[in-house]
């Protein structure tokens, strides 16, 4: 189906918007049902069969709620922050190849696009925290900045290791290089990068920290900072931050699948690529939820020490090691 370029692009973008919207809603449902099962209870069951209509009910409630903007708030920044949360996620999804030809715009520099937009997410949460003139929000804004800066570096170091092994920045080419049986996936390519699983783990931890999830939810630490940076938001403002958070988790897991688990390459080569890509992505998202409902929150300086003193040395080490192995073999 080779529609003319602009119509194809518009169709893809609308498809992506629907994908993100659908995912944000039903990841919330999956998280509530999953946390229920972890805690030996049921999760939402009333609205629709097994609570399937719950996300729709939630979004309608959020939409109809009054979005009140407190008077002492810095109006422009307060309204801009929610938009800044959504835009990077949408744009980076446009570059991600869901399967062989299912990609909005296969840019040659796909990897760089994703990471450059990834850092805007930090700006958004900080703006929200700063603009709402609320003491808890300001503390959380300060935390978010230092946390994301600390975890940006090991993530990029890991990406550089991948770049070295696949020497291309185009996401679909990275996946093509991992074709064949599943030990061709980057996570198992010990011949190029002897510490490949460790690199995957470092990338995964950094992704968790980037999206303020699980043991590192410093920004929205509900038992300390009430609701952190988004305390003053209500109605759809709060809803958009929620969608933004899940969209970023989506992008993070998609990236992890592409870079390490061989994107749409199927281990047994029978079903279409997109199915395998989504399967791997949702397994990783399940792991994000699994981690969230098991661990308490780390301290703030332990979090920073973990990054500066542990993750960065490890990622630097793997970088050098990969360089040596590539050079020798």
């Amino acid at each position: 189906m080779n529609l003319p370029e602009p119509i194809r692009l518009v169709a893809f973008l609308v498809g992506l918007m629907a994908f993100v919207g659908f995912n944000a809603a039903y990841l919330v449902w999956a998280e509530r049902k999953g946390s229920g099962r972890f805690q030996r209870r049921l999760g939402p069951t009333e609205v629709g069969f097994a609570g399937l209509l719950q996300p729709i009910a939630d979004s309608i409630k959020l939409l109809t709620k009054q979005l009140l903007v407190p008077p002492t708030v810095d109006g422009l920044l307060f309204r801009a922050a929610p938009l800044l949360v959504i835009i990077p996620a949408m744009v980076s999804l446009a570059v991600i190849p869901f399967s062989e030809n299912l990609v909005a715009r296969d840019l040659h520099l796909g990897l760089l696009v994703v990471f450059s937009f990834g850092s805007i997410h930090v700006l958004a949460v900080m703006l929200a925290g700063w603009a709402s003139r609320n003491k808890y929000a300001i503390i959380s804004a300060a935390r978010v900045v230092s946390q994301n800066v600390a975890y940006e570096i090991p993530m990029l170091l890991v990406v550089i290791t991948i770049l070295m092994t696949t020497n291309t920045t185009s996401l679909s080419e990275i996946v093509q290089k991992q074709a064949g049986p599943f030990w061709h996936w980057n996570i198992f390519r010990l011949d190029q990068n002897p510490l490949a699983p460790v690199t995957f783990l470092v990338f995964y931890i950094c992704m968790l920290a980037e999206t303020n999830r699980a043991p590192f939810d410093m920004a929205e630490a509900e038992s300390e900072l009430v609701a952190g940076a988004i305390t003053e938001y209500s109605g759809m403002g709060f809803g958009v931050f929620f969608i933004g958070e899940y969209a970023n988790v989506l992008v993070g897991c998609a990236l992890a699948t592409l870079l390490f688990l061989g994107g749409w390459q199927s281990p047994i080569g029978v079903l279409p690529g997109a199915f395998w890509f989504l399967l791997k992505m949702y397994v990783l998202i399940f792991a994000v939820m699994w981690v969230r409902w098991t661990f308490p929150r780390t301290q703030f300086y332990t979090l920073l020490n973990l990054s500066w003193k542990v993750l960065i040395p490890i990622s630097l080490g793997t970088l050098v090691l990969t360089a040596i192995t590539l050079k020798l073999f």
Partner: protein
Amino acid sequence: MTPAEAIEAARRAGNETFILNLGPQHPATHGVLRIKLTMDGEYILRAEPVAGYIHRMHEKMGENRTWAQYLPNTSRIDYLSAMTYTHAYVAAVERAAGIEVPRRAEFIRVITSELNRISSHLVWFGAFLLDLGGFTPLLYAFDDREKILDMLEAITGSRLTYCYYRFGGVYNDVDDAFLGAARDFVPYMRERLKMYETLVTENLILRKRLEGIGPISKKMCHKYGATGPVMRGSGIAYDVRRMEPYSVYPELEFDIPHYPEGDCMARYRVRMEEMAQSLRIIEQAVAMIPAGPFQTPGVPKSLKPPAGDYCFAVEAARGRLMVRIVSDGKEMPYRVRWRTPSFCNITLFEEASRGMMLADALALLGSLDLVIPDIDR
């Protein structure tokens, strides 16, 4: 000093501080306690707890009710370990009026008090981890606590505010179903404590979060009169069941867990091991409980204990609970004074939390295991 002076002093010192109100509505205070924090960035310069939001004046209520009518009040001061509070008041009046308590009633009191201690520690365990961000253990702990509450509801009729003890014994007898349920509960709970051990106690994140945080020295415990797991976490093995033995505790085999470090992890470990010790007590008590009357007959309906003042101390879940009753020979108490453990434990928060970060101060607050009506009465 007043907040204005604090801000002035801080401004002169060149850094800009702000006052952050932790509470009275805050997820981590588990009740209506407000702490005025003078903060410099994320570090706490000065923490001043403000109490009184749930003050109901139990001590004045004591003065216009008869001795027996005051019983429902006793289980509403610290609703999490209501049995031990009723035990303290009832035993104080028995000591004043010289009422004998049959052995079976004493054993029933020990079993129900220890069950209540475990259910109170389970609430603390869940709420403490909730403050630290781990949500799931709370639901496992409440699942176990549900079993205890069902057992106690079967014999007393209510789940939280029992009002089960009477002067000279208990309200109604304990049947074999209850004793059987208590006997089966012990191995089940030991299994669950092992699970909490792997899930939480050995968890690297939790240990990093609690070790070395909020050190409370022995000297501080002495000065502020902090008792219970807080004192036992700082190395002093003080437990009223051993130091001022009452009821049938001297006949029971159990030891007092205590750790010298005095940080949040030590207090955490003390409470977890206390649950194991309570299980040991319940096991022995269920085995040793004799048959016989559960209440001394002939206790006058309108009791008039001889004039004078008497006091009785009990080991509640949060620490040493002392009741001082003054009687002037009439049928209404002249004065009832409750020395509650949380009231003394909160006073050391100001000194212990100076210079800490907000998240650590909340971990310290959670490790003190405060019940706010216990402070306000």
